[in-house]
């Protein structure tokens, strides 16, 4: 099956080898059409009007929520739509800042994205709670004895990535959750941005308390993010945005907020983004996650084997470890920005820099690196193009 044909952007850019899906996915026709249709047929403010298209918009919004819930094994009433996973993580950190004290500690995976680090630093700044990090073993996975040693009765939050955006490592959520549950009463937050499009997520099976992901990491539009909150925790979790739609009664000095997940959705919700996300989930389910994973695994393995043949490429890859379809690497003596410039000239789009993971880069002992990440619209020729570009970089900079 030629999945590339389902993505219109490759009609516009026929030569493009887009290897930056971990940053953002390209959109299939199905998603583009759904958003277009929404704007042509029933764009209206949801939850407010009692006229035809507003009712329809509300219905579409709620159906999208239901679809997301089913996709990750949650109830409709456990799902909030936010703008992005960054907003979702800020919502959670902000909520915890009301209840944590300076005696408490927060445990973060060192492999976390800045969106799952900086908000917790703000919590620490505001209330003085301690920030601890789970470090890695020599295979790039979490050091579980390190994790265990850092859990105690004052550990209130453990927050980490399922898939590591910079290096593509897929952490063993079950192992982390088991250890946390055995050794603390901490609440567990999982950043599923890099796994939601590649692994079957079941929030009950994973037994996490909160989960976030962004729609644009799973073929959906930018502007939709999801926060899953375990039902019994909803009442105790505080909203981030206050304003319209999340209220019951507003007086001059006092307001009664809505109950359930409705209190988290202040302002006009993006039905357009919700509809796009729903279409993206339909898209994924029609193809099947297993099929997606099969294609991506083949591409990843091909990329690893081809890059291994280039002795000037340093791969940040560990054998026998579970991965998302992403590979991090550097070329000796060449700054990643220059690598990406050469790649651009070969119509190869890779990501370079610190990948919003400066603590991880420092932990790995590198200032920055390159990353190639794959999706179902990639083919082996895209990786071949990358190899050609890298050979040229090496020739130009290292005279080889």
């Amino acid at each position: 099956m030629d999945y590339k044909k389902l993505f219109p952007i490759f009609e516009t850019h026929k030569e493009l080898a887009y290897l930056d899906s971990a940053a953002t996915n390209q959109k299939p026709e199905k998603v583009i059409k759904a958003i277009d249709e929404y704007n042509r047929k029933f764009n209206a403010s949801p939850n407010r009007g009692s006229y035809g298209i507003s009712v329809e918009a509300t219905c579409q919004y709620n159906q999208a929520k239901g679809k997301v819930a089913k996709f990750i094994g949650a109830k409709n009433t456990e799902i909030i739509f936010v703008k992005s996973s960054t907003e979702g993580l800020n919502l959670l950190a902000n909520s915890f800042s009301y209840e944590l004290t300076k005696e408490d500690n927060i445990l973060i995976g060192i492999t976390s994205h800045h969106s799952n680090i900086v908000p917790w630093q703000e919590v620490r700044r505001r209330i003085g709670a301690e920030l601890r990090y789970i470090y890695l073993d020599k295979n790039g996975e979490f050091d579980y004895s390190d994790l265990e040693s850092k859990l105690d009765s004052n550990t209130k939050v453990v927050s980490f990535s399922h898939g590591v955006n910079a290096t593509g490592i897929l952490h063993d959520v079950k192992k982390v959750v088991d250890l946390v549950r055995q050794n603390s009463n901490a609440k567990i937050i999982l950043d599923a941005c890099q796994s939601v499009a590649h692994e079957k997520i079941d929030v009950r099976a994973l037994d996490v308390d909160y989960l976030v992901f962004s729609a644009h990491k799973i073929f959906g539009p930018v502007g939709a993010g999801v926060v899953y909150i375990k039902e019994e925790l909803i009442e105790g979790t505080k909203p981030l945005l206050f304003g319209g739609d999340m209220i019951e009664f507003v007086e001059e000095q006092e307001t009664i907020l809505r109950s359930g997940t409705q209190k988290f959705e202040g302002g006009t919700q993006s039905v357009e983004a919700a509809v796009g996300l729903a279409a993206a989930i339909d898209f994924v389910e029609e193809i099947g996650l297993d099929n997606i994973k099969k294609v991506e695994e083949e591409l990843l393995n091909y990329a690893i084997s081809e890059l291994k043949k280039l002795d000037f490429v340093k791969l940040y890859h560990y054998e026998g470890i579970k991965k998302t379809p992403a590979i991090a690497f550097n070329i000796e003596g060449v700054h990643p920005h220059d690598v990406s410039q050469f790649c651009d000239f070969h119509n190869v789009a890779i990501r370079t820099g610190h990948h919003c993971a400066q603590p991880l880069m420092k932990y790995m002992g590198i200032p920055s690196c390159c990353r190639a990440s794959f999706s179902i619209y990639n083919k082996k020729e895209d990786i071949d193009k990358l190899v050609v570009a890298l050979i040229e970089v090496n020739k130009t900079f290292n005279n080889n």
Partner: protein
Amino acid sequence: MSLDRIYTNLIMEHNKNAHNKREIACNCMERGHNPNCGDDITVQLNIENDIVKDAAFIGIGCAISTASSSILMDLIKGKKISDAERIVTNFLNMIKGEELTEEQMEELDEAALLENIKNMPARVKCATLAWNGARVIFEKHEANKN
């Protein structure tokens, strides 16, 4: 624009040579950072009696930022602050897209050869990182005098 018009001999030489990439005894320092690509360069100047006695930089950067920093150091070393400041201002204006006079371009010497960076938005910050650092140093120096 082809790759060899960006990665010119000038850029590659300065990037490889790195004769200005060293730590010096200095009385003025300014760190510049480009978070998008990871360039992190500190300009070090030793200013005495309003003359840039010595100039160098340390840090990590791409070929463009490394070469541009190195070219800057060659250009302002030994110059009076007023001249160095003028050179820096003209370079930054050139990269912003302003037309310089023939005289101004001549004064920029090797730096004038970086002109085409103005057509590459993704590399402007790389090329100007150290120059903005020097600009800030001169501004602070002026402010301290007054």
